[in-house]
């Protein structure tokens, strides 16, 4: 059951120019979390910014009762978050939304992330490993400096391949180029992806061509985060008449349901 909680910040670090990771204690929420779900975070106490901001579960330590978020500073909400210090409290609601479907039996899973879209794939990777899946991560970023999570995957003993636009680390080019040109198809049973829409579009195409089951995590502006305001509507297929609620029906959807 999602609830409201004040998380006690226990760690807050700048990983790259505009990327931060924050860990806080929120035991009641932590014990409910599943990969792919998100928290709705109040960035400040005044009326500007006003609304909460949705941020994916980047990692969860259920024993410790802690949750980590990985975020990129893009506007005033995320900018305000950077001001939180250890021992401050963060006002959160969650866990919200439908997370990733987890395989019942061990599978060979590919996780494709772009930019800060890598965030939910870390927690997903951890849980898949717990379920004895084989996990490969492909991560795209602008440059080596933006590849901030490789060590996380290494710790989890997950194969990590990277692609950078400027070639400063890993494959030079888009992560989808890496996927299409460098990876032998047929090896994966299941694909999860989160990142920019054009990237997810290509990943979904790849999965369709190779008949691989997969899920994508979508974004939409949100107000309530709980399915009450109907603000986060998304038409999944151009032919659909109705809209899905990204906050409640998603943010994770089956690749086949979505048209980019």
């Amino acid at each position, binding site marked *: 059951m999602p609830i409201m909680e004040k998380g006690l910040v226990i760690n807050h670090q700048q990983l790259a120019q505009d990327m931060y990771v924050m860990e806080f204690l929120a035991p009641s929420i932590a014990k409910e979390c599943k990969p792919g779900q998100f928290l709705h975070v109040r960035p400040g106490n005044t009326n500007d910014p006003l609304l909460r901001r949705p941020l994916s579960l980047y990692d969860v330590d259920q024993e410790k009762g802690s949750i980590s978020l990985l975020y990129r500073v893009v506007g005033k909400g995320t900018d305000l978050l950077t001001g939180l210090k250890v021992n401050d409290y963060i006002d959160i609601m969650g866990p919200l939304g439908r997370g990733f479907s987890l395989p019942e039996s061990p599978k060979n899973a590919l996780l494709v992330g772009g930019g800060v879209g890598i965030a939910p794939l870390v927690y997903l990777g951890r849980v898949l490993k717990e379920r004895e899946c084989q996990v490969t991560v492909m991560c795209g970023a602008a440059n080596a400096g933006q590849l901030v999570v490789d060590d996380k995957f290494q710790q989890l003993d997950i194969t990590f391949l990277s692609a950078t636009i400027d070639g400063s680390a890993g494959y030079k080019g888009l992560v989808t180029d890496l996927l299409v040109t460098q990876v032998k198809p047929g090896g994966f049973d299941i694909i999860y992806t989160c990142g920019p829409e054009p990237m997810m579009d290509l990943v979904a195409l790849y999965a369709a061509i190779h008949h691989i089951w997969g899920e994508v995590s979508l974004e939409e502006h949100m107000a309530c985060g709980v399915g009450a305001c109907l603000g986060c509507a998304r038409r999944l297929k151009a032919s659909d008449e*109705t809209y899905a609620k990204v906050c409640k029906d998603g943010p994770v959807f089956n690749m086949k349901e979505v048209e980019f």
Partner: protein
Amino acid sequence: MKNISAGQDIDLRVNLGGILMNNPVAVASGTFGYGREYEDYIDIAGLGAVIVKGTTLEPRHGNPPPRIIETAAGMLNAIGLENPGVDVFVNQYLPYLFEKKVTVIANIAGNTIEEYATIAARLEGCQGIAGIELNISCPNVKQGGLQFGTDPVMVKNVVQAVKAETSLPVMPKLSPNVTNIVEIALAAQEGGADALSMINTLMGMAVDVRTRKPVLANIFGGLSGPAIKPVALRMIYQVYREVDIPILGGGGIMNATDALEFIMVGAAAVSIGTGNFVNPQMAGDILAELYYYMQENDMKSLNEIVGIAVQK
């Protein structure tokens, strides 16, 4: 919250033109779904009223996204009245709320006066509705899309038509996008309104400078949140001086002080809208603080201060 309304000396109950509320803090239409969405966070039966999402005769899919965007101390929404239609509301949502003993105010919207009347007729006799809020910020398709709420004659007619079909208290929700809100309020009263709900959203827009296009697919949206509070207070002040029916006040309420401002300009009860998104427990928090305020000030009923700031 329930034990609060059971306080011995302090009477929190409000009779809003026949809509009987256990306490003066309601949640606003469109910001609280059908109540259930917020059940994990707050005791919805303890709320003064849950004004459910606007209901139309037929199901509506709503507007394409983006539907919302934050603005300075506010937000714009252009949901486009997405809802499953009155039949689904009555058959699927209402029974649950009735069973949970939630005070429900239905909110209805139509394209024509006849549609409003038909929806009201469908709600007649349904268990668990305390009153009807009329969303008159809708375009009147027969009048070339002119909003019902901007023309006193249309306001009077739509209220009259709904009153004819229902035994429930009827509370039109006034649009603030008008030159003369008092004229509209008086027309609603003449039409037989039992109470007034004030205010709906201000019409606004935002531009995405990167794409050089309006942010909202619908171009225009309704502005809500703290940004509009001064306008809401002013309109309620003006209307309170002139009408004899009670007012449900709202627009940007975020805390008990805000709620007291509305009460002091004439609101007999208040509604929390956008504030629910910021803090799903806001309505309960405000109620508790109002109760504390009444204790501190030796008050038995909020009526003692309704309209106290208004110079008649």
